[in-house]
């Protein structure tokens, strides 16, 4: 007898039963996300610390993202500056260009562009890597050898993204401003000193704090989503693809929500 015939198929259940099951599943999912996040804070402070793995992941997240981020940031700086010029020119205000670029890049584009690139590059690779480790039972193998796979895999990766995304954000901001400077220099013949003086005059302490908080939040989110999706990926090669894909989609979605929330909070602070 084929044991799979023992399985009750969903068709045999009543529709009410199916709906209640679906709700159960949503609540179970919410609970497991909550527990997964909580476990991070329970484990991050206690030994053993996997320093070697953390360093390796920092390298993976930070250094490996540099080429893509450099090119993107530089081009965004140039394009944004170039496209903003006509509207300022209409008011005869092209001298405000450095201030405009500065506010846009430091407040919004730097953190956001970094987070989106990292969601695509880092989030998907974490999702796929942990997903395939789950599918090929490597995570189980760690567990039976009495090594905490959560600490080794999840804590190290989430720490790496939480440290490295803010660092990358600073770098992105700088490179994008450099792109902006080149464009301004070419068209308005502004010197680098004047440009950066205007850039720094335009931003406030609050801007820098807000961007830092945001990028830490983005980093944590990207790492956590990738790890959650990969760590809990379903069995089968299909599960790996799904984990990688939904890591990217979910991380980007959450990043935008967080961006909105932080913006509201910062505006409220600015108003008082």
């Amino acid at each position, binding site marked *: 007898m084929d044991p799979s015939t*023992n399985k009750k198929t969903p068709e045999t259940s009543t529709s009410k039963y199916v709906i209640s099951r679906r709700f159960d599943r949503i609540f179970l999912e919410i609970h497991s996300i909550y527990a997964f996040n909580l476990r991070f804070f329970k484990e991050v402070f206690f030994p*053993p610390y996997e320093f070697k793995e953390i360093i390796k992941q920092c390298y993976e997240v930070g250094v490996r993202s540099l080429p893509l981020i450099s090119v993107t940031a530089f081009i965004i700086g140039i394009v944004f500056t170039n496209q903003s010029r006509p509207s300022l020119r209409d008011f005869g205000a092209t001298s405000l260009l450095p201030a405009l670029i500065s506010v846009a890049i430091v407040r919004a584009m730097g953190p956001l562009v970094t987070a989106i690139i990292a969601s695509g590059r880092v989030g998907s690779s974490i999702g796929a890597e942990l997903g395939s480790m789950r599918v090929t039972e490597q995570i189980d193998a760690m567990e039976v050898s009495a090594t905490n796979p959560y600490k080794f895999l999840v804590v190290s990766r989430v720490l790496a993204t939480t440290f490295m995304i803010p660092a990358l954000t600073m770098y992105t901001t700088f490179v994008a401003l450099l792109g902006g400077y080149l464009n301004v220099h070419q068209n308005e013949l502004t010197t680098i000193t004047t440009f950066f003086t205007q850039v720094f005059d335009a931003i406030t302490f609050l801007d820098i704090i807000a961007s830092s908080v945001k990028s830490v939040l983005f980093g944590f989110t990207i790492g956590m989503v990738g790890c959650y999706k990969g760590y809990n990926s379903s069995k089968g090669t299909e599960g790996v693809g799904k984990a990688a894909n939904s890591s990217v989609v979910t991380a980007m979605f959450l990043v935008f929500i967080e961006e909105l929330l932080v913006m509201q909070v910062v505006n409220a602070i600015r108003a008082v």
Partner: protein
Amino acid sequence: MKKINPNINRDDKVIAIRGLQKAFDDFEVLKCVDLDLYKGENLVVLGRSGTGKSVLIKIISGLLQADEGELNVLGEDVNNLTPRQMDALRLKIGFSFQNSALYDSMTVKENLEFPLVRHSKQMNQHDRDRVIDIVLEAVGLSQAMHQMPSELSGGQRKRIGIARTLILRPEIMLYDEPTAGLDPITCIEINKLINEVQRRFNTSSIIITHDLTCARAVGDRVVMLLDGEFKRQGTFDEVFATEDERVKAFYNYNFID
């Protein structure tokens, strides 16, 4: 046919299972499992695909939770252990996975070092290298030390997987289909390895398989999982001396001419 290991101690049960049940949603995989594993014994678990053999040893090593029943491993009641006690127990159990489960981002040497650096802290690099040499030599793959798992064949991966579980000198070995998907000659080598491990390290083992050649070569005792229970047990010949169609079919298809 294997000569039964004379060192088996029938008074010392390293694993004792009573009335174990496990279901996934509505699907009952294990209905009522009773099983004893004696010190120094190689126990073969036979059964068709999907009968829950892997589930059984995952429950023994604490990867899955049983729904019902008693499970005693090396004198510890597995259902009531703190995570710390569970980890201590797991160090005494070696689990060789069906698909080897080597860490594919690490070299063979790093795979073997992984449990060592974490659990044998008093060892220095020199000691670790020596232990790694010993187990690699035991599985006959000394030359693969610096290769990546992806560069190895399926049989070599299996042997490295066994080496990785041996490295902490477990008292109990759980082999999940050690010979599945391997050519007959490699199968014989793996069978020899399993017997060698039993003799050299005095381990007690559960070997899951549907390969009867392997069962005959390594098993001191054979049990057969049918419908979520152990219906037949004894020596290899005793298990197959029955009129039960399913057991006979299992035998006939293995030795088809």
